[in-house]
Every structure is written in structure tokens, then in C-alpha cells.
């Protein structure tokens, strides 16, 4: 519990972060930037888990566990993403989204 801060304010913050992440995800044209936006989204949701755990169900720890898992998954995901990006860079010397469209064919 943060003294003087209601759950609404925290949710407002996470919502804002979440949509900034989405905004970045859609508008950025670089794979790494997209990855960064993704981290924002993940973090926003992770905060939500924790906050809901703390404010509404203080007796259990599920929210915390989920946050831990999110962090773990995010780490794994980032590692893979970076591997892919580097591999891609080796192949086409670019990490721009527009150069990776050929997947659609």
C-alpha cells in the first residue's frame, strides 16, 4: 500500500504506460524499438498484477509470482528476439520492419 495513493491512480499510470507501449509498437519502424515498446507493455501489466495483489488480495502472493514469471518470460523473449535480430542483420544488413516484409509471401 502506498499511503495516499488509491488503486485508481496506479491503474491510470499503468494504462498510460500500456498505451504508450502500444503506440510505440505500432509506429516504430525498427525491430529493436518494437522490442522496447513490448517491454513497456509487459511492465505495465506486471505492475497491474502486483498492485492488484497488494490492494485487493494482500493475503496471497499470486500477483507477485506472475510478475516474476513475466520478468522471466520477458528475459527469455528478449534473448530470443535479440538473437533473431542479429541473425537477421547478418542476412539482410537491416533491422528495419519494411525490409522484413517478405515473410508474407
Amino acid at each position, binding site marked *: *500500500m*502506498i*499511503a*495516499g*495513493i488509491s*488503486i485508481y*491512480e*496506479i*491503474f491510470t*499510470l499503468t*494504462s*498510460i*504506460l*500500456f*498505451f*504508450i507501449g*502500444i*503506440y*510505440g509498437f*505500432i*509506429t*516504430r*519502424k*525498427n525491430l*529493436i*524499438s518494437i522490442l*522496447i*515498446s513490448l*517491454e*513497456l507493455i509487459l*511492465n505495465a501489466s506486471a*505492475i497491474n498484477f*502486483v498492485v492488484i495483489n497488494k*490492494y*485487493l*488480495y*494482500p493475503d496471497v*502472493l*499470486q500477483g*507477485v*509470482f506472475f510478475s516474476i*514469471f513475466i*520478468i*522471466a*518470460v*520477458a*528475459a*527469455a*523473449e*528478449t*534473448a*530470443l528476439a*535479440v*538473437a533473431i*535480430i*542479429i*541473425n537477421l542483420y*547478418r*542476412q539482410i544488413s537491416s533491422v*528495419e520492419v519494411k525490409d522484413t516484409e517478405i515473410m508474407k509471401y
Partner: protein
Amino acid sequence: MEKIVFYILALIMIVSAIASVSSRKMLRSVIYLLFVLIGVAGIYFLIDYNFLAAVQLTVYAGGIIVLVIFSVLLVHHIEMELEMAQLSKKILTGISCLIGLGLFLFIIYTNDFKVVENSKTTSVEAIGRGLLSYDSGGFILPFEVISILLLAAMIGAIIIGKGDKLTKNDDTL
């Protein structure tokens, strides 16, 4: 006091997040992200989840950010400016996001949360026990799954990162 800290943190996070998704320099973008992540850790500290905050700092700020920076450095010139999306697309996305945000907030504020007043602190031991517990509410299975996932991701990352060379070896032989 905590209130003020929270607002400062929130302000830093939002500003950094916006800067992170709009900066034209790749490396700066990553650094702004770092601020956001640290801010998240700060939030965790504020609500007394110290362990979580520590994990956030070490794994995220310490591990992931470094990884990303490395990859940025590997594939970018520092001075390179990023290409930006078309203005129309930005505006469209912005509007869409604002509507979505409005929606979220509308739902959040119309919902009556049953907040339980408390000031519990959670020990690392409780978290450890919870994670490894077989009982109901225990998280041993997800924990194991996550460890396998991490392993798989690690191997996968290695293979993908080196994949090119592996296949090339075959060819040259």
C-alpha cells in the same frame, strides 16, 4: 511523502516512456526505457515488494537492457537517426490509443474495487516457499515450466544466433 514519491516516479516513467517511443536515436531510446524500468522497480519498492523490485532491477535493468544495448551497438551506428512513421499513421494510432486509454480509464473508474487496507510486508522466504510449494496455491509446476522455457530460450537463442554458421559449415564440407 510516499504520495509525492509516487507522483515523481509516475512523471518520470511517463515522460521517459514517451521519450523512449519517440526518440530518433536508438541508444537514447534504450536508456529512456531503463529509466522506466527503474521507475517500475521504484513502484515495487513503494508497495513493499522488495524482492520483486530487486529482481526487476537485476534482470531487467541489469540483464535485458544490457542485452538490448549490445544488440543496438551491434546493428547500429550510434549517430544513426531512426526513420519515423508517417504523420497520418502516428495520428491515427495516437487517436486509437487515446480512445483505448479512455476506455480503460472509464472502465477502471466505473468499477468499484474492494480495496483491503493493510500494510503487510512480504519476506523473500514466503515467496520462495510459495514458488516451490506443492500445496494448493503452490507454484512448483509453473516454476519448473519457466525454467524449461528459459533453457529452451537459451538454446534457441544460441542456435538462432549461430544458425547461419552451422548451416554454412555443412555447405563447405
